[in-house]
């Protein structure tokens, strides 16, 4: 009888586990609110992207046109495929002290793999990943971007 008991138990267990799976899909079939598909071009205005979505690297500026980039080139060194190129210059402060600052922050979107290593490497949180993803342009040169706005300055107190 031991064999028969084992046999019936196997049948019972497998049927129960199959029904459990069918219950799950049955729930999804009847509950349409669970659908995760977003009808993209139609809902462009109300599109909600995940918080950690990586679209492109941007440098946030304040209203007084100040950024947080000190020009340390940590991001340039962290980038595995040479996406970032920072050109630095020396600014002379009113007291006559020389200080390193960025001249241009060049970002090659066409080379970027959105690996997020530059954002992790940045000591001053000057750059971050934006949620934009509609990157198609007509010329390849348009993908090479300068992230710091013209005339922008380093924010006070950021070293």
């Amino acid at each position: 009888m031991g064999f028969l008991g084992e046999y019936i138990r196997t049948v019972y267990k497998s049927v129960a586990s199959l029904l459990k799976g069918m219950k799950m899909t049955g729930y999804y079939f009847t509950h349409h609110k669970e659908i995760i598909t977003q009808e993209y071009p139609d809902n462009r205005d109300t599109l909600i992207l995940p918080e950690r979505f990586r679209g492109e690297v941007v440098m946030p500026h304040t209203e007084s046109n100040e950024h947080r980039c000190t020009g340390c080139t940590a991001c340039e060194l962290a980038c595995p495929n040479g996406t970032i190129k920072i050109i630095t210059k020396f600014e002379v402060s009113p007291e006559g002290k020389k200080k390193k600052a960025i001249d241009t922050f060049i970002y090659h979107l066409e080379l970027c793999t959105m690996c997020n290593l530059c954002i992790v490497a940045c000591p001053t949180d000057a750059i971050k990943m934006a949620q934009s993803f509609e990157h198609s342009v007509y010329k390849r040169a348009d993908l090479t971007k300068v992230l710091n706005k013209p005339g922008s300055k380093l924010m006070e107190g950021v070293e």
Partner: protein
Amino acid sequence: MFSIEKISGVVHTWLASHLPARIALLSEFVIVGILMISLFAFLGLVLVFMERKVSAYMQIRLGPNRVGPKGIFQTLADTLKLILKEGLRPTGADKFLFNLAPYIVMMVAMLLMAPIPFARNVQIWDVNIGVLYISAISSISVIGILMAGWSSNNKYSLLGAMRSGAQIVSYELSAGLAILSIVILTGSLRVSDIVASQATGWWIFKGHIPALISFVIFIIAVTAETNRAPFDLAEAESELTAGFHTEYSGMQFALFFLAEYVNIFIVTAIGATLFLGGWMPFHIGGWEAFNHIMDFIPSSIWFFGKTFFLIFIIMWFRWTFPRLRIDQLLNLEWRYLLPIGLFNLLLMTVIGILGWHF
């Protein structure tokens, strides 16, 4: 009230009164043939769309939603694409068998349509060995599949066809045993007799638990026989690209695809006829008013409703369960379904002889 029986009667009397008897019969053949082919095309369109929508909702997706309102014209557009596509044939393929195979598979599906009762007194051929005819003809489709696999001159196709052969041959037994248990209760192989015997209640209710077990075995076996997931290892996409129809394209591929869905319809229609009472309305003993309301629903709607319910269950299987390995597949058949089916048949015979069913 709407009834296919009345319409066919009117057509028959009109033809008989206007044409000589022989030509009237011939034109009736032609009409039935055209109706069957259009039913095939309609089923292909509807079932493919239904499958895509069901699968989408089960996987928390939306499914086709661009062509027409809610995407209902999607399958129509797909068919148009397949018609316009070029049918390619590999150089090393056996030309004759390669071209013949899809038609054999399709023809089997057409032959199986004959004994199915679509509504009250609407049946193409009420043969007295109807159930035997169904199980005999349905095993021919494996020849078409083997033919396609062999003639394609492709390893994937051959492997898929061989798997399909092993699968259909073994699962035919369980399906046959499940059908037999109903034949024992009815005492007749004629499909119309089987339906008539369920006027007081469907066999799945009247036959106690053994009928329920045969129903479950039947559903599992026909899912395997139609090569659908979780038993779709004959055309397992991830291993064999598309199994026996890897090398087919255009309309020849469409015929295989159509035959798959028509076969699903046929086996579920047989299941609905044997276990769920075919076109018989749902009756509860003693509830006269309720039974009377149920009688008002046309019999064709009862038949198609039950069939589509079973189709939905088979689709539910497909989008829930993972694919079985070949050894698991044969284990399931020879170690579980067949012994249970045989024991169930014995139990059913006892019930039938002692008259324990309602």
